[in-house]
């Protein structure tokens, strides 16, 4: 394992920080979901990530870790975010395999597979005003940063930057997927809750790898 590698501990730290961010911001996420959805995204994410941290145990491999995370989200969240975040983590695990750390390339490959899982489950396209709009730019920035020789820490920081921009860019959009789409034109002018929780996901990653 080189210094630039991402250990299991760091990955657990990522999840722990993500839990902290969604529980601290539970009210905010629910507030966003009140405007264009059904006022549960905060409690969904908090319930899910609390369950994840409770269930974590002492996983020995990256795939075991993320299998637990993904299954726990799927079985404790429900709603749209449960299967989507669940699939995201499950695919990271399957892609990474029975390793005990990730390097830049395998981290990127895992996240990319997770993202593709989200797309294939939810069928959202960029611009539909969903978490995809934060996740896609984040991964592109991560890959670009790694491609230009940065280490995972710097790449995660770039991903977080891009996730925030992606999140902010959902504000003017008219939703075409998820519950916000029922509002039609009225969905414009509000941040997407899922894109916002995804920005927290990348904030947690950037902080854990920093």
């Amino acid at each position, binding site marked *: 394992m080189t210094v630039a590698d991402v250990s299991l501990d760091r990955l657990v730290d990522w999840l722990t920080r993500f839990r902290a961010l969604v529980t601290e911001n539970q009210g905010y996420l629910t*507030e966003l979901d009140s*405007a264009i959805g059904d006022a*549960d995204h905060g*409690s969904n994410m908090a319930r899910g990530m609390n369950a994840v941290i409770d269930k974590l145990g002492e996983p020995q491999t990256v795939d075991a870790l993320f299998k637990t995370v993904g299954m726990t989200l799927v079985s*404790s*969240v429900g*709603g*749209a975010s449960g*299967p989507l975040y669940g699939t995201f983590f499950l695919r990271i695990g399957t892609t990474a395999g029975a390793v005990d750390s990730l390097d830049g390339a395998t981290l990127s490959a895992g996240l990319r597979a997770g993202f593709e899982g989200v797309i294939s489950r939810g069928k959202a396209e960029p611009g539909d005003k969903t978490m995809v709009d934060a996740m896609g730019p984040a991964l592109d920035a991560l890959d670009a940063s790694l491609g230009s020789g940065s280490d995972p820490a710097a790449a995660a920081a770039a991903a977080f930057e891009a996730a925030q921009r992606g999140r902010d860019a959902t504000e003017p959009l008219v939703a075409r997927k998820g519950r916000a789409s029922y509002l039609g034109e009225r969905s414009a002018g509000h941040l997407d809750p899922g894109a916002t929780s995804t920005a927290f996901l990348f904030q947690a990653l950037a902080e854990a790898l920093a």
Partner: protein
Amino acid sequence: MKKLINAPEAVLAEALVGIAAAHPELNVDHDNRIIYRGSPTRAGKVALISGGGSGHEPLHGGFVGLGMLDAACAGEIFTSPTPDQMQEATRVADSGAGVLHIVKNYTGDVMNFEMAAELAEAETGVKVASVVINDDVAVEDSTWTAGRRGVGLTVLLEKIVGAAAEEGRDLEAVTALANRVNDNGRSMGMALTSCTVPSAGKPTFDLPDDMMEIGVGIHGEPGRHRVALAPAASIAQQLVDPILADLDFTQGPVIAMLNGMGGSPLIELYLMYGEVAKLLEKAGVTVARSLVGNYITSLDMAGCSVTLLRADDELLGLWDAPVNTSGLRWGV
């Protein structure tokens, strides 16, 4: 927030305790949050399972029993249940004749039921079919969107398809019937006030005293548009017109439901039904059966929805067939 609850996180678990106490004729699996019939599914009978977020009571748990559902999965408030729950309900309810999943068209519900069906078929070999209900004319239907929501038609579909399953029809026939009901039903809803989700602690949306939301769903989502508060006659018009514009209901008998959102008293629902009935008569629609009351609610939201279903002798016969659930009961 004023509610008859202890703590927001505990609402669902504690409501299930009350349901179990009030209905000894039902089984309640508190761990999996499943309500199922007191006696196992009769051999050869297709099992009907539904589920969704809680807060819509009596839907779905109140429709478990003879002539309707075999099991219902209760999600957190306004949050689809999880695949595990559905998988367990599928396992418990299957008699070998297969299981129909009755899914309301919401991204979360559809994805969770899909995962459940994949898992159930892979792990236990149960035959699973599903119907996705999408009757809400308030919502634009296109392949580029999440499509129409499933709302009031769910009640009618669970009743009619439940009767067909009770008759012993096979999974294919039951599924075809469910799709036929879905194709022939339309709904439209409105709200005078927002509901308050317990964990959110305040109303989902603010609505001035002189405004109402037209085209709301059942999750406290704001509606399609906001208009000035109007008399019942005008509200009825704003609900009935888009339904009639979407589908021709003049060619045969119709089953009509005037559904309350949970916070509107029955006297207002009857008054609204009177207005709706007048409009339907004027439009040449013949109501053969009707249902007025709180059947698919949105917590404490004040408001109502209208559902119409094109029927024929077969559907009317299935509608009239015995049903014995806490939410709907006749002929038994």
